[in-house]
């Protein structure tokens, strides 16, 4: 590595910059955490009160008893465990296929994905409800799983289409010459080479389904089918001024998404791992 004084100053500056970024973006989380530990009924703090006085676990204990958190947590985990892999499967297959098409078909399909991307969510709320009602699947867990059938968002298909375009065509042709079908070429040649895309899509798909309070609100009614974001939203309708319990709920909802990305970026987005992935090309 560089050892010149200038290089060392630059390196120290880089560390300082990274710590500054970390600090700045961590502030909202710290405020949420701190607010969840305040005693109920206190007025909002003047300025920054990092450690509440007194520290109170009241909000957390009420959160775990009041809301049907346990049951909602189980349903949320099951839904995410199904939706995320299916989303990766559907969008990576579509992205790979788009990459294999001739130019006219490819452009049409990419254009279609962009048009689908432009559809605003409110355009689907009422009319999708009417379709679900006609199909008789309102208030069934199916409404939570169905969005995975179209890969949750056209963005994921586009990300995979770009990612697979980076995979050298010779590798796919080689697999074809060796007698592999398209599914085999997708799974054993192309898919491992777009690992960073899969990590990004997986993390984003998890967040999209884990934090989705709109789908259950619109299409589910019975208490047994409450997901975590909906359970936490109920807290707000009970008492809007009860900040501590709402903050505790928000933290409970955010923590799995934070942990997932923490693990994923450490395991899959480190340099050595990618070098190894690209090494396999040779």
């Amino acid at each position, binding site marked *: 590595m560089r050892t010149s004084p200038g290089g060392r100053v630059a390196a120290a500056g880089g560390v300082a910059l990274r710590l500054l970024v970390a600090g700045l973006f961590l502030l909202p989380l710290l405020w949420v955490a701190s607010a969840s530990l305040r005693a109920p009924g206190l007025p909002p703090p003047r300025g920054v009160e990092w450690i509440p006085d007194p520290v109170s676990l009241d909000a957390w204990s009420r959160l775990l008893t009041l809301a049907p958190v346990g049951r909602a947590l189980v349903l949320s985990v099951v839904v995410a465990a199904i939706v995320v892999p299916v989303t990766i499967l559907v969008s990576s297959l579509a992205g790979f296929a788009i990459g294999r098409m001739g130019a006219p078909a490819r452009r049409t399909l990419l254009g279609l994905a962009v048009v689908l991307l432009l559809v605003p969510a409110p355009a689907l709320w009422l009319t999708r409800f009417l379709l679900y009602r006609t199909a008789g699947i309102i208030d069934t867990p199916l409404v939570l799983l169905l969005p995975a059938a179209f890969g949750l968002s*056209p963005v994921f298909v586009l990300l995979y289409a770009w990612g697979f375009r980076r995979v050298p065509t010779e590798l796919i042709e080689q697999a074809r010459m060796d007698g592999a079908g398209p599914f085999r070429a997708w799974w054993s040649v192309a898919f491992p080479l777009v690992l960073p895309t899969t990590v990004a899509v997986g993390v984003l798909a998890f967040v999209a389904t884990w*934090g989705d309070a709109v789908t259950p609100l619109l299409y589910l009614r019975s208490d047994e089918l409450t997901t975590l974001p909906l359970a936490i939203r109920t807290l707000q309708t009970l008492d809007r001024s009860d900040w501590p319990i709402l903050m505790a709920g928000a933290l409970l909802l955010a923590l799995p998404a934070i942990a997932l990305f923490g693990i994923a970026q450490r395991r899959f987005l480190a340099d050595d791992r990618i070098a190894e992935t690209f090494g396999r090309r040779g």
Partner: protein
Amino acid sequence: MPDPGRVAALRDPWRRGPWLMLAPWLVGSLLLVGLPALLTLLLSLTAYDGISAPVFTGFDAYRIVARDPLAGRALENTLLFLVAAVPLRIIGALGLALLLERPRRGTGTARVAAWIPAVIPDVAAALVWLWIFNPLLGPVNLLLGALGLPTPGWLADPETARIPFVVMAAAGLGEGFVVLLAALKGIPPEIRSAAALDGAGRVATFRAITLPFLVPWLVVLSIRDTVVALQWTLIPALVMTGGDPYYSTLFLPQAIREEAFDRFRYGPGSALIVLLALVAAAVSVGILLLARGRGVTDAD
């Protein structure tokens, strides 16, 4: 007797394979996105209250929207918010992805930190920002006051009320950051190291190699952020301002919600939704034209 070449083509798994791979996404998208979107487009040509059958009224709903001064105000506010928030989010996400690309001391923590505001539920995040920009108690004005700078009324003042929304939207750039981080990892490292060996400086390497490689990703992200930003304001506005003061934070999603879901006027409500989609489409065409011919992978 059938043409043997044709039979072979039908049997060739490489012919039908790609279409089989596309089928789930294509069918799912058309049934669950295309069809309901089309129905909303049709509803915008009707008078519909959700109970009795819709009545075809041509472009009446659009005339109602065009005559409504509040709809115009909502459109103006939404566009002002859009042009500030989307570039901030994209440039911020790109800057952070470049800064935190390589594992060095502090990178892991900073990456996770940059991701966090994007995953804090919007109700809670809105409450936090409401307090951060509180004119009397909030840390922003306490800091500005201590530095002897003017302390604006932020959400209480129509002149400054949209700024906290832009800041909040910019803070939630985590998803774009993750996508760009992955995109950077997908650039074959040997290409960039070859450029560095050729004596290209960091800025030159970025402009000649990294940026053109990223163009397709930046295009997708900009379009996505435009669509997201257009509808994102619903919950923050509900929690922070309710559209006040003097309608300075009345954005299109709130107007849609009030029209369609509070007053059950789905005709004009759907017309507002179509207006929202048209804004998204116009901005996206602009983005695509801007990016044309600048990328490595063909972005069309």
